[in-house]
């Protein structure tokens, strides 16, 4: 995942560029500096779109807020109580970022309930509202009866905008019409932002964003709080546009609402998509390509095409203005990129393995070795032994019901998991087994009943809070984070046990470095334990089916659970893989006193390792007992086992 921030040659090139430009008389520094502001904006947008996977079509609104925060605080002309004070540029730039971040939270909050298309539409609306509001707040009068508390207040400058805006003051550096000081200011801010972003990406917060992008439900069930994670992405993404906007305002010396229209949001999105969403290098590349093309190539080639037109005598060419064609070229470029390289110019090329749900992977796995006691990570063992509570029942479910519309999925179900027990949950398809898991893990709300875990009620808790209490699960149809590495998948599991904050992730004090190193060691230990050593950097989706199942278990163990819910862990496995997994489950219980609730259709597995079994049919518990009792239970045979089961070789209970 790590990208270097550029070889030294690039740094030197960036440092000498303005002087070379001046020596050659090219006069491109202005355009390049402006371009860098847009690159910074695109990088901020990349946090929201590329990392957290939230499509934002109105990002220019945050750009506007940053610019106006600077303009309103730092312009000497307007007449509000805030104006006219000599606010320092260096203070305003932070205030602008803070205001943008705050608005990011305000905008983010209502959009969190919606996803995908709906989220995009809401951000689109927001992107339209801000410029309109700015236009209309240039002449505000509030009238209550005859009382006019506010009369003809010019809050934003309206259509005329704010002009001039105060310049930065730095002894010895003239921030005037010469673009070079601006260039270096933007370069420094940009480099610092990039540094902060790359550190955020490689922290627990960056992993949480990507987990949300990959599979929000699975992330929630792995201990990542989707609400705070998405809000953080919105706020941080907005704060970078606050920096960009405030520099833009001060550099241009004038801001008007027209600079923050919908097209700007789309251009920024183009930069991200062209370069490769989620890749810092790619977004920089995409941003530079588009701005250089827009600001330099189009205007220069206009002259060229005109002179060609004059020479060959085509009047249409002789009078052309290519800059008016910019959206045509952007559109064309975007179409070509989507067709030829949908992952973006610098996006990681993903091997076209069979579609997501296909278990059939091209490289056959070696027969997996049996799990070994010695391979259990020491820290996990210590954690488990320490956590082993005194209470007899770790999970106590009483009278839980759940209906979807008119269909009763669970009907007053009781189920107890004693500490350190393996409890089987079986029943016909559609009997409510997975619904039971969903209710216990907080994915579905109960309609009634009690769920107590380690003495505390779980009713009303969000899935990630339940994970933090100590319940982890796997899914019937594997739900990994497919485009994240194997190691990162496990690290997301550790998320709720790690503490690094935004400041910690960026500044990396020793405590955070140590925490991160420990987290990686633990993740590698867990991977070794489930038999996935040496695959740290593989994408999860490229693993063979059986390995994916084991990775999901490693991820669940990384949350340090006391109760593990396994939903058909051996589905789609061959007998040998099934045997390995069964041994692994037994080992977890025996060595770690981990309590396990198991949904499984492979009767050899269920009968072989369960202490007790609960049978559901049509949402109702029809039987509960030891494997031997269940095997003879007439209702279970009728509804579930069938008569053929007796023909299979019986496996004695341990």
């Amino acid at each position, binding site marked *: 995942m790590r990208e270097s921030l550029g070889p030294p040659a690039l740094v030197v090139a960036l440092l000498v560029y303005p002087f070379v430009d001046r020596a050659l008389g090219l006069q491109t520094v202005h355009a390049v500096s402006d371009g860098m502001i847009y690159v910074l904006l695109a990088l901020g947008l990349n946090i929201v779109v590329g990392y957290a996977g939230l499509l934002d079509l109105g990002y220019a609104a945050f750009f506007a807020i940053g610019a106006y925060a600077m303009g309103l605080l730092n312009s000497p002309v307007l007449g509000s109580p805030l104006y006219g004070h000599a606010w320092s540029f260096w203070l305003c730039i932070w205030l602008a970022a803070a205001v943008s971040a705050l608005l990011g939270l305000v905008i983010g909050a209502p959009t969190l309930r919606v996803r995908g298309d709906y989220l995009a539409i809401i951000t689109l609306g927001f992107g339209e509202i801000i410029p309109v509001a700015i236009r209309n707040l240039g002449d505000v009068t509030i009238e209550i009866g005859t009382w006019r508390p506010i009369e003809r207040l010019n809050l934003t400058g309206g259509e005329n905008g704010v002009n001039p805006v105060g310049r930065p003051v730095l002894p010895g550096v003239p921030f005037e019409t010469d673009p070079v000081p601006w260039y270096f200011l933007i370069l420094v801010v940009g480099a610092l932002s990039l540094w902060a972003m790359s550190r955020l990406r490689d922290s627990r917060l960056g992993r949480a964003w990507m987990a949300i992008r990959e599979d929000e439900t699975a992330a929630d069930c792995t201990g990542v709080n989707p609400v705070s994670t998405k809000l953080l992405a919105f706020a941080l993404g907005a704060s970078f546009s606050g920096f960009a906007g405030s520099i833009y305002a001060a550099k241009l010396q004038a801001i008007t609402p027209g600079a923050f229209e919908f097209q700007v949001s789309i251009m920024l999105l183009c930069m991200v998509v062209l370069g490769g969403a989620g890749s810092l290098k790619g977004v920089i590349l995409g941003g530079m390509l588009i701005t250089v093309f827009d600001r330099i190539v189009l205007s220069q080639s206009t002259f060229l095409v005109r002179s060609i037109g004059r020479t060959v005598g085509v009047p249409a060419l002789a009078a052309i203005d290519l800059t008016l064609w910019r959206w045509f070229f952007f559109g064309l470029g975007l179409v070509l990129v989507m067709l030829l390289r949908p992952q973006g110019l610098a996006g990681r090329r993903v091997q076209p393995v069979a579609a997501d749900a296909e278990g059939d992977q091209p490289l056959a796995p070696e027969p997996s070795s049996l799990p070994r006691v010695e391979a259990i990570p020491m820290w996990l063992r210590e954690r488990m032994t320490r956590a082993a509570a005194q209470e007899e029942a770790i999970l106590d479910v009483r009278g839980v019901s759940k209906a979807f519309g008119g269909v009763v999925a669970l009907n007053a179900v009781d189920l107890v998991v004693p500490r350190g027990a393996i409890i089987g949950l079986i029943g016909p398809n559609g009997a409510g087994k997975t619904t039971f898991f969903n209710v216990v893990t907080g994915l579905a709300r109960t309609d009634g009943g009690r769920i107590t875990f380690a003495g505390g009620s779980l009713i009303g808790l969000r899935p990630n809070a339940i994970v933090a209490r100590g319940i982890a699960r796997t899914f019937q149809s594997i739900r990994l984070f497919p485009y994240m590495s194997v190691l990162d998948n496990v690290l997301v599991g550790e998320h709720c046990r790690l503490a690094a904050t935004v400041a910690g992730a960026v500044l990396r004090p020793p405590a955070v470095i140590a925490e991160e190193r420990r987290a990686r060691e633990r993740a590698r230990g867990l991977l070794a334990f489930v038999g996935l050593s040496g695959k740290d950097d593989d994408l999860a989706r490229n693993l063979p089916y059986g390995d994916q199942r084991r990775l999901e278990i490693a991820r669940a163990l990384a949350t340090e659970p006391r109760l593990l819910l396994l939903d058909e862990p051996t589905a789609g496995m*061959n007998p040998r893989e099934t045997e390995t997994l069964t041994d692994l489950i037994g080992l977890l219980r025996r060595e770690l006193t981990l309590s396990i609730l198991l949904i499984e259709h492979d009767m050899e597995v269920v009968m072989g390792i369960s202490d007790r079994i609960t049978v559901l049919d049509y949402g109702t518990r029809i039987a509960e007992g030891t494997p031997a009792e269940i095997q003879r239970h007439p209702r279970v045979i009728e509804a579930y086992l069938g008569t053929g089961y007796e023909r299979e070789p019986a496996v004695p209970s341990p």
Partner: protein
Amino acid sequence: MLELADVHTYYGSIRALRGLSLSVERGEIVTLIGANGAGKTTTLRTILGLVRPRHGTVSFNGARLDALSTDRIVRLGIAQSPEGRHIFPRMSVLENLELGAFVRSDRDGIAPDLERVFALFPRLRERVSQKGGTLSGGEQQMLAISRALMARPGLLLLDEPSMGLSPILVETIFRIIQDINRQGTTILLVEQNARMALRVAHRGYVIQTGRIVLHDAAATLLRSDLVRKTYLGEK
């Protein structure tokens, strides 16, 4: 009826099928068994034109399939019940089934076939107006098989039909597979449950790392050492 000859299929640079040949005759149940990652699903994807073989030919009733688009192949009379079900989650059970019959021109035959799949899977009749995505995993499996049957295919491809089903339903599914076959549908069955698959199949192929390593009458395979040790889990 179906013939794959020396088929090589690649995913990028990874060879998934390495010269695979197999045939299915009209009226047969043929099963393809093998470990995860051996190339079973890739074989089905190649037949359906979802991936193109780089070498080799796929033909169906004498017509070459390897240059046709998937929808054309389906119209020739091949239907699949995919692994992982891939039902249409926001459409009702009935709409899912009706879409299965999308390629058919015999309007009159559709209603009796709907009755036929409801007779096979009474649970689907109970849920007929429910959205596909709200069904349990096993019910979705039934729906996927039924949807394929609604196309009245000459050749039915089943990818892990027993996955995620209760023991009693596994038996039912395999009985239904035999019923469907007796009613005239040829079946290519990919299964993890080798024991059951070989019990209902006429012939079987064993696939390892993209090649057929063994093929014989199903009853013979059930007794072979390789199959018993590797795929039936016997010691």
